[in-house]
């Protein structure tokens, strides 16, 4: 089966006063129809820039996007802005972290959900409003007919995120880009939104690219996981394999650094990853993780590791990936 979305050798570089920041540096991955792929990593690893590059929401210049982003037979990286507009909010939906800043405070919720439907699907005002009502009902907003005429500030954080999801799904997108969709929410509300997104995915069959730093959210939602570090993919596998048989020392470090519910003990220390993320301005020689890696040898500081398949659908960019079981 051909992939729904295929990213190949994506490079998003930003020209800054201090030099070129290689935010995303040669990333490849794909998303199948109806699948949830999580892109995980810490601040500055390039996961958000990846999502913005797919949506072409980074300003060029200062950014430069190179590589291929194939979706429905087209290369999004080379598409004109008008064609991109036709896709955004239509075939490609998006949800961002902070619903308060992604919603227009001056327009009612109903109007904001109806707008893309009128624009992309040519529905008239009345039909679009009916669609908006249907979407608000679908995402579980109580008294949806009243909420249609509410402004964003009249909704709670959780309700706003539901409204964002309603807007993102209104045009039945084939793929939904969700950048930290639950990070700003309280845990009980986060649980509601995760359940909602899983349920809606089953019903609408849309694929999801889930950008997150939260391994708990990954475990609950994703089918496949791409781990990023310093703008590059360091490991990829299905979700069970990532958690049970991680091969890259960075993936192992991340998993060890998270306190597990149920594993109580004030005396146990969390596994640390020493040091911090390297600068993305200086060209990276060798493996980007070498400076923090417990296993790093001479070769790691000299040569960037090639991508190695270590199992079906499981690969890692580590010189020692194969042996490190």
């Amino acid at each position, binding site marked *: 089966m051909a992939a729904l979305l295929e990213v190949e050798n994506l490079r998003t570089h930003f020209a800054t006063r201090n030099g070129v920041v290689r935010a995303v540096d040669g990333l490849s991955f794909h998303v199948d129809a109806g699948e949830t792929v999580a892109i995980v990593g*810490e*601040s500055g690893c390039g996961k958000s820039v990846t999502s913005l590059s797919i949506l072409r929401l980074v300003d060029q210049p200062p950014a430069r996007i190179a590589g291929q982003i194939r979706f429905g037979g087209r290369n999004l990286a080379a598409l004109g802005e008008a064609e991109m507009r036709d896709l955004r909010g239509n075939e490609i939906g998006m949800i961002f972290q902070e619903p308060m800043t992604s919603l227009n405070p001056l327009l009612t919720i109903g109007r904001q959900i109806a707008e893309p439907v009128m624009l992309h699907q040519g529905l008239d005002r009345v039909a679009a409003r009916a669609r908006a009502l249907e979407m608000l009902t679908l995402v579980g907003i*109580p008294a949806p007919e009243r909420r249609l005429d509410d402004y964003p500030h009249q909704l*709670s*954080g*959780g*309700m706003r995120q539901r409204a964002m999801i309603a807007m993102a799904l209104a045009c039945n997108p084939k793929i939904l880009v969700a950048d930290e969709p639950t990070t700003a929410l*309280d*845990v*009980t*509300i*986060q*649980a*509601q939104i*995760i*359940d909602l997104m899983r349920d809606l995915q089953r019903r609408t069959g849309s694929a999801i690219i889930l950008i997150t*730093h*939260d*391994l*708990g*959210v*990954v*475990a*609950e939602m994703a089918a496949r996981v791409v781990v990023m570090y310093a703008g590059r993919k360091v490991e990829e596998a299905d*979700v*069970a394999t990532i*958690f*049970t048989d991680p091969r890259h020392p960075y993936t192992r*470090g*991340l*998993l*060890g*650094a*998270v*306190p*597990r*519910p*149920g*594993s*109580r*003990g*004030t005396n*146990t*220390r*969390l*596994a*640390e*990853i*020493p040091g*911090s*993320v390297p600068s993305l301005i200086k060209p990276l020689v060798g493996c980007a993780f070498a400076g923090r890696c417990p296993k790093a040898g001479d070769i790691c500081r000299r040569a960037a590791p090639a991508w190695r398949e270590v199992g079906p659908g499981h690969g890692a960019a580590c010189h020692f990936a194969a042996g490190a079981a």
Partner: protein
Amino acid sequence: MSTTLLDVRDLVKHYPVGGGLFGRRAETVHAVDGVSFGVDAGETLAIVGESGCGKSTVGKVVLGLAPPTAGRVSFGGTDYADIGAADMKRVRRRLQVVFQDPFSSMNPRMKVRDIVAEPLENFGVIDGRSAITDRVRDLLVRVGLPADALNRFPHEFSGGQRQRICIARALAPGADLIVCDEAVSALDVSVKAQIVNLLLDLQAEYGLALLFISHDIAVVEHMAHRVAVMYLGKIMEIGDRDVLFAQPAHPYTRALLSAVPVPDPAVRRGRAALAGDLPSPIDPPRGCRFHTRCPLAFDRCRVDEPALRAVGSGRLAACHLDQPADA
């Protein structure tokens, strides 16, 4: 026998909002509404809860940064209400704070040396410029920073390193208790682990008590000795960590714990999903504050507010149900 270092009794903190200008009726935010707890020397008490539950306000009042509306706070046996500014300063020396955002809790124009030296000078802990510098250098090394950090500015450090500077500043005057208000929440996973480990090491070394205010349940489960769960200005449940996490007694505790996503795809746990949103603290629900979202609420919960009472294994829970945990 451990000694109670911090004692908070029936603490109430209300904030007036609105009103005034257009003759609208002034309203009151019931940020904290009758909260009692103690923290022993060398122990970690975590206060967990979601936004707006009042956990940070408790921290502010404990630090003396906001006067309580009612109730008493005492530290080392000294009641805040009985003392003047000079005595309060003595209390504040032993009571320090680390905030969430290491980017906004340090003066960007001060060198690290001066940031950490400030409490030493303020409280007159050490005299003499070079003696102070020596002490600052020791503290920086102790929290895992290079000694040459002394002459650099905060912006030269990463988030985790800045949080280390804040911890050094809190340790400087010889704190007995550090209020950590979401002290690790803004940090990346790998750095968060570094800071959590550092706090545990320092606690063991100096016998520090921590009032650990956080919404990060996993970190709390890892670090705390005892846990207080707050909801809309009230403590819903308080008790030993092991018991509270193994057998949460209050329906809210259960919902809160089960809402935390588990970083293990093999675990598919049944979730005690909570419907609805947090009610407004301006007009909190009558009766039990949790009744609007509680799956087990019955008539009495809507009118009669439950008091905290013992529910076994040293726990206190504010719920009308007889044995809420096993119901």
